[in-house]
């Protein structure tokens, strides 16, 4: 441990020990680690739910779970993967890397940082009890609504919904606190000379992510609160008999839900903005435009939500507006993808695991972009709505777009976090295993969807059986590959080749690279005095 012994009497140079180090932590690296471990645990819980869903769908008819439990699993799989896995993993990376990248001693508000993490396990307990409470008699119908919890169904189901609503409240508080912290850190804690336009793209991506969460999370909180009042206090927000409107909830939900997609996506784009220059050994092509595109995406993402509800009967003018707005989104996204491709152009590319994931993202996320434009077109969407085509589309958007970005980040930064290199061979096996099995799982769902197979239904017509069996086999392989992921992580944490301060030859190209000037693993307190950026 080479932590520098320093300064005033209120600072201890040693790490706190025992459970207090973690439960009471005010250290961005420890909190980042907890976020990442939490995300990993949730990945396996949410993944187990996905395995159950795919096992049930291996054959038509009812085999393993009853329809209500099936729909509850679908609900919780989504919520756990979004709120429990992708967001915490991205927040963990933000916690670890942003202060090191911008030369800050820690996050701006370290105690609040701790609270935003520890709210997550509390929310997870509530969320899992909303799943388990159905096994207690007298608690009503399980949460069979899907993660969108649309009324009137969500007003009618049992006690699980209340637990879920309060879980969403805690998750919202956690996200807002984390976002306030990250945005404040970025605006206020940069080292001298670290101007906004020198910040690594990952920092920029989290800046916009934080702003999005500050804006949209309160809207979701308001929506689910109204739902709660409709359920228990006799209000009629979502009941037309009392003058309300169930469609309003869809507007509120998707005003949150659509920007949420960018919340999941942007941090991965930030990771790409570091991984691709590193392994192409070339500065990022068009850094400033990339920042502007992300800003454009942020703004546009806030005003296109209703493309999730084309079928509810909005007027022609409204659907047309949302259709055009949605198609416009392909412009900044497409430009970002071209920027990444031009970064690779004529670079000295090597294909380490993070780079393999980065290239896979560019390919497969573009594919999701193409199906996204198909879904954005109103007359076409009326056919695709609520079919497996949509399921295939958003899994292509979220697994390559968000999850693979996190994998790239994990492999890219594991040497920095642990001080050890991971096993490159195993990393590559993991890459090919996940990528192939992912495509095996979700590619056939485009076809079953176009053929008309509906989402969120436990049973299906016998004509879809081949597609579903291929999908299920792919899903089991995809699920299994994560055991290798876990093994690689544990192996790297426990030992391996020394990583050195800068494990990647091209790591510093085009960014100030403060994080690579620290040893691996970095000392408990990164900077005692702020480093200066030339």
């Amino acid at each position, binding site marked *: 441990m080479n932590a520098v012994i320093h300064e005033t009497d209120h600072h201890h140079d040693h790490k706190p020990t025992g459970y207090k180090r973690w439960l009471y932590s005010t250290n961005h690296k420890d909190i980042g680690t907890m976020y990442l471990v939490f995300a990993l645990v949730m990945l396996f819980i949410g993944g187990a739910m996905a395995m159950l869903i795919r096992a049930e769908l291996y054959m038509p008819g009812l085999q393993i779970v009853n329809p209500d439990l099936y729909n509850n699993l679908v609900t919780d799989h989504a919520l756990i993967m979004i709120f429990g896995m992708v967001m915490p993993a991205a927040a963990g990376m933000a916690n670890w890397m942003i202060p090191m990248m911008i030369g800050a001693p820690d996050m701006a508000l370290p105690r609040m940082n701790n609270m935003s993490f520890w709210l997550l396990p509390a929310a997870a307990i509530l969320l899992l009890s909303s799943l388990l409470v159905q096994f207690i008699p007298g*608690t009503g119908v399980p949460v069979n609504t899907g993660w969108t919890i649309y009324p009137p169904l969500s007003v009618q189901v049992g006690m699980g919904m209340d637990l879920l609503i309060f879980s969403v409240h805690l998750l919202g508080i956690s996200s807002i606190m984390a976002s306030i912290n990250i945005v404040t850190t970025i605006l206020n804690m940069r080292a001298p000379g670290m101007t906004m336009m020198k910040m690594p793209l990952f920092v920029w991506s989290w800046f916009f992510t934080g702003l999005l969460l500050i804006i949209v999370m309160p809207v979701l909180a308001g929506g689910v609160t109204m739902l709660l009042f409709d359920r228990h206090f006799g209000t*009629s927000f979502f009941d037309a008999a009392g003058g309300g409107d169930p469609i309003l909830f869809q507007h509120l939900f998707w005003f949150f839900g659509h920007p949420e997609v960018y919340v999941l996506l942007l941090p991965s784009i930030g990771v790409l903005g570091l991984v691709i220059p590193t392994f192409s050994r070339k500065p990022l092509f068009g850094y400033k435009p990339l920042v502007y595109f992300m800003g454009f995406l942020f703004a546009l993402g806030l005003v296109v939500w209703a493309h999730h509800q084309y079928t509810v009967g909005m007027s022609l003018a409204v659907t047309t507006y949302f259709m055009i707005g949605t198609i416009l989104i392909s412009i900044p996204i497409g430009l970002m993808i071209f920027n990444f491709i031009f970064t690779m152009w004529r670079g000295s590319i090597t294909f380490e695991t993070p780079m393999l994931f980065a290239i896979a993202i560019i390919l497969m996320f573009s594919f999701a972009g193409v199906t996204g434009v198909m879904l954005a077109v109103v007359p076409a969407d009326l056919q695709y709505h609520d079919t497996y085509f949509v399921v295939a589309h958003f899994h292509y958007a979220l697994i390559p777009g968000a999850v693979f970005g996190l994998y790239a980040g994990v492999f890219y930064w594991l040497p920095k976090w642990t001080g050890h290199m991971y096993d490159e061979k195993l990393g590559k096996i993991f890459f090919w295993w996940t990528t192939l099995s992912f495509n095996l799982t979700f590619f056939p769902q485009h076809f079953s969807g176009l053929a008309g197979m509906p989402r969120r239904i436990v049973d299906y017509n016998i004509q879809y059986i081949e597609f579903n069996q291929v999908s299920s086999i792919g899903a089991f392989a995809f699920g299994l590959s994560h055991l290798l992921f876990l093994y690689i992580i544990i192996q790297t944490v426990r030992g391996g080749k020394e990583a050195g301060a800068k494990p990647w030859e091209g790591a510093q190209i085009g960014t100030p690279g403060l994080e690579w000037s620290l040893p691996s693993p970095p000392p408990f307190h990164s900077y005692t005095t702020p480093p200066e950026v030339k």
Partner: protein
Amino acid sequence: MSTNTTAEQDYFIPEPSRWPAVGVAGLFFTVLGFALWMNGVGFGPYSTMIGGAILIYLLFGWFGDVIDESLTNKYNSGVDRSFRQGMFWFITSEVFFFITFFACLYYFRNISLPSLGGEGHLATSNILWEGFKYSWPVVNLPDVTNYTQIIEPMGPGGIPAYNTIILLTSGVTLTWAHWGLKKESQSQLVIGLAMTVALGLFFIALQAYEYFHAYTELGLTLNSGIYGSTFYMLTGFHGFHVTLGTVMLIVILIRSAKGHFSEENHFAFEGVAWYWHFVDVVWLGLYVFVYWL
């Protein structure tokens, strides 16, 4: 950089603290209790009470620590900026929370209810409730089976008008107190804050009386259809925020009386003042869109 003093240069990183974990426990038991309570589980109210007690303990503990740190000059200008920016973003998120409810009101009044009343090509009223006529406030509901009818809607005169004057005046007294702080006049600061607190309490009392009046005489309840729902959701969350703001003002009043603030170092005062002005502005929106128009 080395010429700077240590205190000014070092950003204060707090020691490991138990308060965040205490806060999580408090929130967890509070909301778990609500969920159980609403479903008639006996443990619910106790869980909420335990959670609430933990939260009160938390507020004393955490803010106590922060006040100690502030008084012992551990915060440099960087920490001060972080607090200000943090408060700014917190109020931003609160603004969007209220925008949600205002947007819902707009949606009901201009989109969904006119449509239910037969306007536009998407009208559903002829299929669902023939003859439903839309007018705001909605006194005659499409289907009254599960709801109660309003006897009389809430008007803009009387209590709401007094409340508007009270809140606007409280904004003035608070600013006057701030001027006192800036010219280091302890008495002006304390008197201004005390007047603000008194006006805040007066507002809450009037609002409580108004709710009582609405429930007992106007038949305006949470259960009286969309007008009652939006009325109580908007004014209720606002009233909750005013209550929080008043508690914050009382804390600041006590701290001012103890002489905690100086001309340069008074973020806590400003944070609370921003918050108070924010609830003030929300009230103006409420007065116009809920009571008046």
